[in-house]
């Protein structure tokens, strides 16, 4: 009797918590289709009006372009550096290795806000005040540790005999890397790149102190819009981002498996 009660209570609490996790995202999507400017629930009429409104809001459009270009450039710069470093770390057996690994993963440990401020202050001290440059530096730091981590994880699963075989058969280091190792670790590298890209695109805390009036990323554009307006166009742009993320996740899951991202 007690056991059944305990189980029942436990299940009820668990389902309430699943609801809690989903509630805000589901509500955002529901509100985005609401025709009224004032929130009403359930919606009286459905419309795509707010999607149109969001796509015509200049700060969202320029923010989306800025964020996309920034995330692309940061991923493009961080990936070769991260893969190269992971490769060297994987191969080496010397004692300082753990310290270097820790160093390369350090950007994960330092709060984003602190990274942003440190860059702002240091670059201002050097009289560098260009927002695009300091944003790029900050976002490379966001992407780099994820590429290092997922590449290291894929390398760890690699059979070392494969490289040796390639080299025995006459391939030099570069050829062995390009023709044998790279195709095998590609899923891990791509998973790290995608995760890094999403985190860079969604980032608020690093960018918060690095943007200026002319260069604003999408999440910060949404945030400043939110401080003065509360119409459902925020819900519409948010729903589009949710849809985009689901798309990326489905692709990653189909092609690589989500486990790549969380079990580094």
């Amino acid at each position, binding site marked *: 009797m007690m056991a059944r009660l305990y189980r029942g209570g436990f299940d009820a609490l668990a389902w309430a*918590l699943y609801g809690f*996790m989903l509630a805000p*995202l589901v509500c955002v999507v529901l509100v985005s289709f609401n025709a009224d400017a004032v929130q009403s629930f359930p919606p009286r009429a459905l419309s795509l009006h707010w999607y149109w409104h969001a796509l015509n809001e200049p700060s969202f459009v320029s923010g989306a372009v800025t964020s996309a270009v920034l995330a692309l450039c940061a991923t493009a710069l961080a990936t070769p550096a991260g893969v190269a470093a992971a490769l060297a770390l994987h191969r080496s057996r010397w004692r300082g290795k753990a310290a270097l690994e820790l160093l390369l993963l350090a950007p994960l440990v330092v709060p984003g806000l602190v990274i942003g401020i440190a860059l702002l202050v240091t670059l201002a*001290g050097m009289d560098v005040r260009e927002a695009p440059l300091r944003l790029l530096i900050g976002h490379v730091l966001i992407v780099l540790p994820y590429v290092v981590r997922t590449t290291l994880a894929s390398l760890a699963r690699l059979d070392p005999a494969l490289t040796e075989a390639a080299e025995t058969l006459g391939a030099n280091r570069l050829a062995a890397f390009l023709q044998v190792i790279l195709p095998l670790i590609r899923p891990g590298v791509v998973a790290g790149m995608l995760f890094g890209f999403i985190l860079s695109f969604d980032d608020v805390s690093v960018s*918060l102190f690095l943007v200026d009036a002319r260069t604003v990323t999408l999440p910060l554009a949404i945030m400043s819009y939110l401080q003065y307006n509360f119409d459902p166009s925020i*819900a519409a742009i948010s729903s589009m981002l949710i849809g985009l*993320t689901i798309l990326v996740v489905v692709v990653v899951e189909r092609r690589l498996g989500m486990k790549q991202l969380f079990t580094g």
Partner: protein
Amino acid sequence: MTKAAISALDGRFASRLGPVRSGRQGVSGASSLLLLPAVLVVCFCLLVPLAYVVVLSFNPPVTGEVELTNELTLVNYARLFLQPFYSAILLRTISVSAITTFLCVGFGLVLALSIWRAPPRQRGLRVIIVISPLLVSIVTRTYGWMVVLGDNGILNTLLRAMGLIDEPLHMMFTQGAVIVGLVHVFLPMMVLSILAAMDKIDPALAQAAETLGASSFVAFWKITFPLLIPGLTAGVTIVFSLAMSSYVTPALMGGRNAGMLTTLIYQQFVVTYNWHFGAALVVVLLTTSLIALALVLLESGRRTRAWLVKP
């Protein structure tokens, strides 16, 4: 002073690279060349700027001044710890983070257990529901809570429609709203940490206890829970330090009297331009996170090794 800081870091950097060149097992020059770009990026774009902020926090406060000077002082820290207005914010930040962490532990255990016990086919779906907030921008998540908790929000509308209340409840812009938002943001991390620990537990252990007559509650409390301690330790420290340094949720969901350390930091850097005091606040925030990290490293070596991805 900057140069001193840079050369100090260079020194540490060189001592780290030392073994590369002279180590007995040795690494080829090509390997250290491969490491160079990433290591340089982290050193010059993260470690040097952090050192700069630390030095700045010990310089006397001059509004608008960003160059480092040789004058060292504790004025900025004294202001934070001795003025009641600021120390109250510090205490509030710590207590909000502690409450958030406490709730995450309780809810995280329930969710992780529910995922663990679920039939294999449902497991994936449950995991995706729990981590779904991680995949959306924090601004979107926070806006979602504003839609749910607002005066004309969904929760108030539902409660009114059911006739439970006449006047809307004021839930937004309170301490409670901040905690709800933070728990939602960080619960996935807690669940993932606990699940990582659960994966290493043999389910037969709890079953054996139940066969031998323990109720499922006792079996959980006496058998499963102690084995979860490493995962919980990691989760607690991760959630606590992330909650301390969260900005968006308190800024958007907190009212005028719910300011946290991060919103105060934002004020110093963007509104009042008192960068020296701001730098001191950043150092306090960073120290707290690093102490939390040190706890992870010391308390659960097993998980740390997995996290560092050793071959």
